[in-house]
């Protein structure tokens, strides 16, 4: 309990007992860090704390925080590649399973880019989901960015192709491509996504492919990440809905599995609710009670 834990911190004990370790482990498990990663981290911590002679739960917690930050490779480059050097627009494609926040992230990201003085165009390559293009259009109007859309049920690859073509001819800095949500288990839909990527590449290489992961996602997140990597070249992760009660601990395994950094976090449904991912801040949230 929070009360019990608070008390523990006040009466700084001379020695750590098994309950302290279990508390720690529970904390990680309840943040969706997962059994394997949790076991690994706690084992490493045990060794370290022995060497350092850690005596209080407080010290232990700090040590754990450091360990988690380390696990998130804080040295990684987390900038979104929104400028290209080839004289053409940078292409940023947004992918992920259903309902994670792809369209919203496109809108919020466009807002940030425009705020930084870039010219931006968005492509509505979700031609499947009811009113998806309208949704992106509304976001475009909100943040002052044009949206290229195709007819309903059009081939998503051709809409993406047209959006990039238009971006090149308008000479914008960045083209954001929103794609339909799809479960990684749907082979046909995953092939379709691969095709979107390949068709865009006929114009020019894609700079950034962002996998959008919902912070409430449990252990399935790792499988999602793996399978998406097989069809498109994921270069960054966006962790959305961190404004809720979920901690998003699954990104620790996802980042390690993919070898690509979490770059952005979604903190709400408003146009300014997008922030850079900060490993230390994330870890503090993860370890916070409640």
């Amino acid at each position, binding site marked *: 309990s929070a009360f019990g834990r608070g008390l523990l911190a006040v009466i700084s004990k001379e020695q750590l007992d098994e309950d302290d370790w279990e508390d720690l482990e*529970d904390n990680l*498990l*309840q*943040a*969706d860090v*997962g*059994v394997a990663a949790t076991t690994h981290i706690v084992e490493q911590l045990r060794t370290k704390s022995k060497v350092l002679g850690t005596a209080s739960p407080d010290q232990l917690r700090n040590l754990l925080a450091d360990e988690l930050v380390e696990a998130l490779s804080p040295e990684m480059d987390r900038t979104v590649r929104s400028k290209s050097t080839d004289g053409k627009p940078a292409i940023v494609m947004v992918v992920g*399973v*259903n*309902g*994670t*926040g792809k*369209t919203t992230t496109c*809108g919020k990201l466009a807002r940030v880019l425009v705020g930084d003085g870039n010219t931006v165009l968005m492509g509505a390559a979700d031609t*499947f*989901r*009811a*009113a998806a293009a*309208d*949704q992106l*259009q*509304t*976001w475009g109007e*909100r943040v002052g960015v044009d949206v290229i859309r195709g007819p309903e049920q059009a081939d998503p690859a051709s809409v993406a192709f047209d959006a990039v073509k238009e971006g090149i001819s308008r000479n914008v800095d960045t083209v954001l491509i929103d794609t339909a949500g799809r*479960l*990684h*288990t*749907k082979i046909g839909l995953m092939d379709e996504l691969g095709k979107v990527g390949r068709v865009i590449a006929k114009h020019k290489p894609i700079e950034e492919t962002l996998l959008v992961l*919902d*912070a*409430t*996602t*449990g*252990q*399935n*997140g790792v*499988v999602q990440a793996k399978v998406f990597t097989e069809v498109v070249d994921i270069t960054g992760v966006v962790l959305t*809905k961190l*404004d*809720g*009660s*979920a*901690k998003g601990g*699954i990104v620790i395994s996802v980042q390690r599995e993919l070898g690509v950094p979490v770059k952005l976090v979604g903190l709400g*449904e408003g146009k300014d609710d997008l922030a850079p991912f900060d490993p230390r801040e994330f870890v503090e949230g993860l370890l916070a009670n409640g």
Partner: protein
Amino acid sequence: MFDTLSDRLENVFSGLRSKGRLTDADIDATAREIRIALLEADVALPVVKAFIASVKERSKGAEVSKALNPAQQVIKIVNEELVNILGGETRRLQFAKTPPTVILLAGLQGAGKTTLAGKLGKWLKAQGHSPMLVACDLQRPNAVTQLQVVGEQAGVEVYAPEPGNGVGDPVSVALNSIENAKHAMHDVVVVDTAGRTGIDQEMMQQAIGIRDAVQPNEILFVIDAMIGQDAINTAQAFRDGVGFTGVVLSKLDGDARGGAALSVRHVTGQPIMFASTGEKLDDFDVFHPERMASRILGMGDMLTLIEQA
């Protein structure tokens, strides 16, 4: 690494012959593996702990049948307990004595509410009802348009007097929808609401306002089968906030184990009524507790073996 619980348990017990009665060591070893399997299936930790404790209790002193080895014996107990919790008293939708019956949908952002509204509409229509969908999500960009499109696909009327995108009051739309439904002879009203987190007090209050305006016969809590440990907090927040009378598990067409089903059921006691299994309006089924139990534990084949024993 072992993929399924059956593999893991076979490993734990390899070389071990049935001794007529389960020893405490047998039970502990099995319990450890089940704990891992449940956590990997995203069952919330407090629920895992409670569940393991009760399985241990039941396993102690259980006679080992000749046909089953100790691992299988415990699995049998685990499975029975799981089905028990997941199934409980399964029940059908409650219809109002005087129509219209009102079904309110609630849940986190992106859980699958609007899609479910379309699915319910189509399903109810096929059963001879005359449903109407109500657009009370006036928040999320083009949620109203989305509901209109799914309503059209379902061949069901949509009541959408406000454009949404921040314009209009969802509570008054909810209120007016009932009169409208009565007038147009609709016997079931399905109310779509905006997604909200469990910790957004203001938005939860709005949901309560909608609820009080329509006096629903059913409040369905829609939850994504991919959700992790947060299922328990969110379920509690919705239970204590708007409240709910039934659960719909969505996106079950993926490969998530769906441990949330157990968590939600455990903390709220409300039945899981439907499974949503795809983006198309026909991808919808009543909930099957037995299928869910073996899905959570990932133990398909072993159960068949046990059933035959």
